[in-house]
């Protein structure tokens, strides 16, 4: 018995990035600082480093994703890791294998990092209890999407120089959004004031307990905001039980240049993508490089993920 205990104690407990909720301010700042150094690298002709040479990174995506998956893919490769992306649509999980079984199988191959995207909230937490390697959450259910919040923070810092003291509005389907939750935690942590704006049916219960002010009126919610983050409205929620229609949503919650005037004069727009043009955001506004940070978000996403991989992979 004593021997058994000993081996357990020796066993290394890897660190995981499961959510902003589990992060300290210092850890968040370290990631952002580290990421800054990768921005230049990513813009240079030679982008390859060997920091993670010999390390194996598995991207385990249970939900379709374009930008997050390719971003993690590139980030790993640029750091020199061997990256494998598991297409879950073809895996045994479709044949009834549980998440834990898959995790144990992958674990036996000695990966150093598993990046997981899963439709169920808490799936990365469960995975992290069962594997020996680092687990990085690339989005779980409606709970957290920590690297998205971190890249949003980096984008804001890049433009505004800081986050502390800024007023940030998050607008749209807050109820189903992991991006909203992670951003609420991170922006609060870094000293911003956060407003959330949504129709009542898309506002989660007790959201104020997360340290935000909630609004159903864009005019009031955007008042004085420096950053306006728009969220994607999923197709299936546009009609029926959550909202009367796409048209009505656009009328009251779609971001247009008129509504943007409620915010501060130099307000900037963000969107985690993919955008529904003409539903949550006016298409011209989305492409206006003077106010829209959408492309920059994607660019800095790679840098942030490189920083996370470097700092969390031992």
């Amino acid at each position, binding site marked *: 018995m004593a021997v058994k205990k000993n081996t357990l104690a020796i066993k290394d407990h890897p660190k995981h990035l499961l959510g902003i909720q589990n992060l300290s301010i210092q850890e968040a700042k370290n990631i952002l600082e580290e990421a800054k150094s990768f921005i230049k690298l990513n813009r240079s002709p030679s982008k390859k480093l060997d920091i993670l040479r010999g390390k194996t990174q598995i991207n385990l995506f249970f939900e379709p994703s374009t930008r997050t998956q390719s971003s993690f893919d590139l980030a790993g490769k640029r750091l020199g890791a061997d990256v494998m992306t598991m297409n879950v649509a073809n895996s045994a999980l479709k044949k009834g294998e549980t998440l834990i079984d898959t995790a144990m199988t992958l674990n036996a191959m000695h990966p150093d990092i598993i990046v997981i995207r899963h439709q169920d*909230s*808490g799936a990365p*937490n469960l995975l992290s209890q069962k594997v020996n390697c680092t687990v990085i959450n690339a989005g779980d*259910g409606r*709970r957290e999407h920590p690297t998205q919040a971190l890249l949003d923070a980096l984008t804001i810092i890049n433009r505004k120089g800081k986050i502390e003291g800024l007023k940030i509005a998050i607008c749209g389907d807050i109820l189903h959004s992991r991006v909203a939750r992670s951003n609420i935690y991170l922006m609060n942590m870094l000293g911003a004031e956060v407003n959330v704006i949504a129709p009542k049916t898309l506002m*989660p*219960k007790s959201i104020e307990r*997360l340290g935000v002010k909630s609004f159903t009126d864009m005019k009031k919610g955007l008042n004085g905001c420096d950053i306006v983050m728009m969220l994607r409205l999923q197709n299936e929620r546009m009609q029926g039980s959550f909202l009367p229609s796409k048209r009505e949503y656009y009328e009251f919650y779609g971001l247009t240049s008129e509504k943007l005037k409620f915010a501060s004069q130099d307000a900037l727009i963000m969107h985690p993508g993919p955008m529904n043009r003409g539903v949550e955001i006016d298409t011209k506004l989305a492409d206006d490089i003077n106010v829209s940070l959408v492309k920059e978000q994607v660019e800095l996403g790679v840098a942030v993920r490189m920083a996370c991989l470097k700092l969390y992979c031992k």
Partner: protein
Amino acid sequence: MKEKILINARILDPSQKMDEKGSVVIDEKGKIKAIGKDVKKSDTTSSAEILDLKNHIIIPGIVDMKAFVGEPGYEYKENFRTLSQAALSGGVTSVVTMPNTKPIIDNVSMVDFIIRRGRDKASINLFPCASLTREMSGKEMSEFGLLSAKGIIGFTDVVKTVQNTETMAKIMDYASDIGVLIMQHTEDFELSKGGCINDGEVSTRLGLEGISYIAEKIIIERDLSLLGEFPCRYHVNQISSKESLDVIKRNKEKGLKFSVGVSINNLSLNENDIGDFKTFLKLSPPLRLENDRIALVEGIKSGLIDVIVSDHTPEDEEGKRLPFAQAATGAIGIETLLPLALEMHHNESLPLSKIIETLTINPAKILKINKGTLKKGSDADICVLDLDKPWVVNANDLKSKSKNSAIEGRKLQGKVLMTFLNGELAFKS
């Protein structure tokens, strides 16, 4: 069987408002022959076995109105033998078993099977329920009359609710005539769709779909409206929120006759205990706010809630080792029912006699069975209890076949020392 006398005990029997030092004599047939402070050794035959209980407490054997035994179909979760052992070591001598087995208990031949099987394998008193509707589909009512005649104690769809109001009206109308007991799980499935925990701050933080208290309240309101028209024997299986209690209060004050249960889990845990996705605390109805928990305890004190149940729901590890939304619902609890309930005595939120009442005579009265009492002439189903003994819950030490305890590691005070079933010593710690 020899006559027995249990001496030097504190006898606590709410059915006869008894709380006194005294003795209990059990006759050769396993019935209570004499009880109380006036009983002397001379009241027994000279050959009687004498047991000195050293001032420990005697209560009637507990009647648990809601437990799942895996037979038939889910023997890997629990069987009659393991359920009996778990029950007896928790002082439970009578158990109402749920019909959501595989196949579902909704016909006469299934009842024959489980009664025979229970007789062969179980060592507790079993009172089986049949499903309220055929195949628990919520559509056609079960054969209440035929099933009752075969020994079915009550009718419930366990974790399902009859959603169709017209069907429920017909069920209650028919049941009111033949006098069967309807036990309803109260949940509006449209309102609770996809939900797995209380709708509130914790569900927002964990990113899980919530179940609002309204889902429960609205069915209780509907059923109690119907009950006004069709006065049958109606029991709400388990309530979870303060708002439901308000509805119950209003209707009981109006003079409507019905009974209400609550799970020990909802009395001793709240939504914050779910922590970082602890699937063993995924329960139905869900754990709610601390304010709800306090209101439920008050509900017992004021008599609005009649019984405490274990809601014993064994689930194997595979069913629980999944992302929270996919994980199985329920926790075991028959063995820890009494010790956990005693917490409310030790922290002075309820009088001890009230706790025992909700675990013994109250369920017996609702079920119309001659249990939960130590009155002269009744079956000697007895639990002997050390009220103060401290211990720590370790699921691996529990007798249930499944180990999904919602209170793993909890420090409890009070433990069952002995359990007698029909006068025979059936468990000794």
